[in-house]
């Protein structure tokens, strides 16, 4: 615009701007957008969210006798196993392990619904295997929270369960 040097153009410009003083705003705009881009890219939009775990207090020796007995049928044991499979059994560890695919959200929800309606006051144990990926453990706990199965505990596999897993692996292989 500044290159228009004819007198007519000059007159027109004066008419338009009033004073004839013409501030070049481009550098300022450049700067503004540069800052805008910088802040847009550095700002953290994805804040981490937290899954709160409250572990039961460790029972000391005195509490051993009065350990509350839970009826076996009320107990569900979930064993996070591979990236999308959770093994489970209900009751005593004398049946074969069954498989629950967590990736199939509808089936998983269905399973928990059925479990909730079949048992009053259910108790869930989550016992991940040593090499289970962390993701499936989190998914399982998250699912329990969503299903409002609030009585769950993170625990370690006992001998009978290790045996069951070995048997499950054996049947898969053959």
């Amino acid at each position, binding site marked *: *615009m500044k290159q*228009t040097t*004819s007198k*007519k*153009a000059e007159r*027109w*410009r004066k008419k*338009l*701007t009033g004073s004839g003083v013409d501030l070049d*705003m481009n550098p*300022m*705009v450049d700067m*503004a*957008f540069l*800052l*805008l881009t910088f*802040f*847009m890219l*550095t*700002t*953290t939009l*994805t*804040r*981490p*969210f*937290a*899954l*709160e*775990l*409250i*572990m*039961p*207090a*460790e029972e000391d020796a005195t509490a051993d006798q009065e350990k509350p007995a839970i009826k076996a049928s009320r107990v569900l044991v979930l064993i*996070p196993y591979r990236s999308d499979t959770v093994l489970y059994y209900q009751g005593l560890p004398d049946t074969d392990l069954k498989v629950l695919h967590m990736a199939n*959200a509808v089936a998983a929800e269905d399973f928990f619904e059925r479990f909730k309606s079949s048992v009053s006051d259910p108790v869930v144990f989550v016992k*991940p*295997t*040593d*090499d*289970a*990926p*962390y*993701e499936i*453990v*989190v*998914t399982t*706990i*998250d699912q329990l*929270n*969503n299903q409002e199965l609030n009585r769950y505990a*993170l625990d*370690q596999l006992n001998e009978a369960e290790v045996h069951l897993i070995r048997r499950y692996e054996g049947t898969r292989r053959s």
Partner: protein
Amino acid sequence: MAIEKARPRIVKLDMNPMVDMAFLLVTFFMLSTSFRLEEPTEVVLPPATADVPMPETSVMTIYINRQGQIFFGIDGKFSKKALLNHIGQRYQLEFTSEQVENFALLSGFGVSVAELPKLLSDKERMRVYPMKGIPVDSLSNELSDWIVYSRVVNPAIRVAVKADKGTEYKYIRRVINTLLENKILRFNLLTEKLPSKNKQ
């Protein structure tokens, strides 16, 4: 007949509204931004539907990467300095004031206490130092000391476990057991928010 005079064309674009808007956005981002901290190790969080945001202050973070290496971080410059002093006393190590300053600059670290002076003495190479993780063996569980003294420094501190989604659970269990041994029964597993499916 009116003859249209050839007028020189001057295109005047009014940029003011655009500039106003740009500055408004700049101001917004400037005020709302909190800079992303450099993480001591790379961690991909597991997705979950949990929607409780993690508070950002007064938190100690235990990082567990895919290989199962453990890193530890605590927020706040003063807490960090106080924590290092406690650890120095515990392990009978003297840290120079320069090393303490350098420690306050780190968002997290993953070396054994014996290796700390070496890490902290070089400010420039601190961030590229090959960290192998904090030992959590039953013989020398240094993570336990870090946790204990962090609570001494700030009794109201919360614990966040930031583990990679592919980490094998046995590594996580070691950390959880360490927490339980120290009577920390309440802690947070950090997750990434999954877009919730509202079926209702």
